[in-house]
């Protein structure tokens, strides 16, 4: 019976395992192996070499780009957390009718189901030099020169990130919040806590697992992104993902692989640290 359980478990998990071996583990192994190979203009040569890593670590641009990656990730994280927490808090604790709660929650999630690229490009008529934002600000007399930094800048990159990924924060936080027993809030009020005190001393600590899960989502999405940065910065900015995609575009696979290995290690370390603070399986 005992042995049976393990065999049955593996049998049922076998399709999953096979898919993950074929499309997750093998690719990672391949990337690691290839990162030690050499390349020509058009092909890769299976010959061991540390050259890719030497070049990577030897270039100041690498550090700059990793810094930019963290910068995007951290700023986006802070913004999505602030917005996501506020929105989830509003839905969970200020909307009383459950029907209304679900309706508003759905309203928030709908854009999440539509194409990321479409959502991204939809900012362009908005933010351009002659876009809606600038025209409006100019016609209201707030500015007389168009704001250049609205588009093709760090601002627009982060704006798009926040636009795309806030939902990944709202959903787990809302999920955790709705599971907070309402009598805890009443107990806090009973104990003289103000609304703000209740938020800080009760709701926030109890929402931590949701925040952690949202954080994992947002950080990995932003750190692995390359397309948003390309679009929204007008190709002017780069994060690690773009470095890799540029290398790939130029057929520099070994170099791309080396960068990818470093990115993977970085992401896994970050997520590993986060996972120490939350038992995902328990929180689901």
């Amino acid at each position, binding site marked *: 019976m005992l042995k049976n359980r393990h065999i049955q478990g593996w049998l049922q998990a076998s399709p999953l395992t096979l898919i993950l071996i074929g499309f997750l583990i093998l690719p990672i192994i391949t990337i690691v192996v290839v990162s030690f190979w050499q*390349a*020509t*203009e*058009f*092909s890769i040569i299976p010959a061991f070499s540390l050259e890719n890593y030497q*070049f990577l670590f030897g*270039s100041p*641009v690498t550090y*700059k*780009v990793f810094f930019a990656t963290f910068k995007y990730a951290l700023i986006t994280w802070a913004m999505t957390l602030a917005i996501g927490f506020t929105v989830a808090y509003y839905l969970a604790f200020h909307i009383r009718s459950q029907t209304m709660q679900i309706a508003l929650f759905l309203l928030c999630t709908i854009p999440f189901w539509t194409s990321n690229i479409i959502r991204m490009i939809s900012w362009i008529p908005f933010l*351009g*030099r*002659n876009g809606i934002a600038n025209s409006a600000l100019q016609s209201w007399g707030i500015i007389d020169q168009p704001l*250049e930094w609205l*588009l*093709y800048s760090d601002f627009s990159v982060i704006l798009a990130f926040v636009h795309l990924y806030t939902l990944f924060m709202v959903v787990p936080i809302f999920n955790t919040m709705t599971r907070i027993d309402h009598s805890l809030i009443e107990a806090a009020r009973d104990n003289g806590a103000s609304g703000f005190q209740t938020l800080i001393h009760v709701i926030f600590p109890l929402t931590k697992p949701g925040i952690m899960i949202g954080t994992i989502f947002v950080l990995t999405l932003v750190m692995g992104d390359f397309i948003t940065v390309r679009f929204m*910065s*007008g*190709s*002017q900015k*780069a994060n690690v993902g*773009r*470095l890799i995609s*540029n*290398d*790939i*575009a*130029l*057929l*520099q696979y070994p*170099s791309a692989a080396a960068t990818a290995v470093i990115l993977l290690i970085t992401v896994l370390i970050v997520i590993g640290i986060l996972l120490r603070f939350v038992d995902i399986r328990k929180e689901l």
Partner: protein
Amino acid sequence: QEIKDITLRQFGTGVSNLNDVGQKVKEDLGFTLEMTALDSDSVTQRAATQPDSFDIADIEYWICKKVWPTGNLQAMDVSKIKNYDKIVGIFKDGRLTPESTLAQGTAPHTVGFVEGEGSKTFATEQTNWMTLIPTIYNADTLGIRPDLIGRPIETWAELLNPEFKGKASLLDISSIGIMDMAMVCEAMGEVQYGDKGNMTREEIDKTFAIFTEAKKNGQFRAFWKTFDESVNLMASGEVVIQSMWSPAITAVKSRGIPCVYQPLKEGYRSWGGGIGLSANLSGMALDAAYEYINWYLSGWVGGYLMRQGYYSAVPETSKEFMTENEWGYWFEGKPATDIITSPTGDTLAQAGETRDGGSFYDRMGHVACWNAVMDENQYMVRKWNEFIAS
């Protein structure tokens, strides 16, 4: 199996992978031509790494230089090409007219031939085996928004003029962009190149140093990769000066936005495209492919492309598919006698207007360099990547 059951899969950049061509092939030749349009990098990538995914590669000559050694393409038997003789000299010996000088960079004739059928190295002169059949080419220069600039522009050096801070743009395709950079640096007098088309590491470093500095100072609004991005940037006023492709300028103009294809004193940076055959093609499909190539050079496509502002490799045959007004306007640089429309019917010019840059010979005769893949290309590519990321 009949010819009408054959399907040839062609991929290439959006410039020439036009669905209208596929339709016309079906009409004229009976078989099916499937078109996939990609950006230049994806084109290179696919040609180099996915030989099974295509039958016909519509690529540029500098891409050919990179890809040919993979063996993914097969050489073409010149004797099977009917209009070979009518192909302009640029693609054969590099000279437009016998007295023309050779331009720098990866000129089409340097990668246009191989020694034998299976050879992986390029021949130095014409042989019976061609790598690509030339189809389309042009000479590029800076495009500008005269309404927003308000003064004449005469030199490539203007691209880095601080006057256009935040309003300049550059093309993010390394082999093309580096040549624009070289034109600029040379015009500014900052760098003297031995051979722009084959720079040394020092020359590469110097060039990037200048452009990185400019980028840091906010000279550029955005970088672009495809034809249409450049159109959108220019049309929306985000950018007022950038190197552009002739039809892109036409596209901006057709929206009623003033835009000039500005001839410059240093000359043009030229590019050329052609179609190559997948190494996997054989038998009836190969026959169909040759049929397609011969059809391609027989004039209809040439006319179609010329009416967009490109040039055909066999202008003579194209002439039959153009009106006299069109031929005069597009090829001879004469004022239009009637309105000029694109193949899809959009008005491109009114009677009396002339084409920027003049006639075919004025333009193709002033080519300073070609898009290039250099000996130090790998080094250059890495530096390019750094430049983009910096």
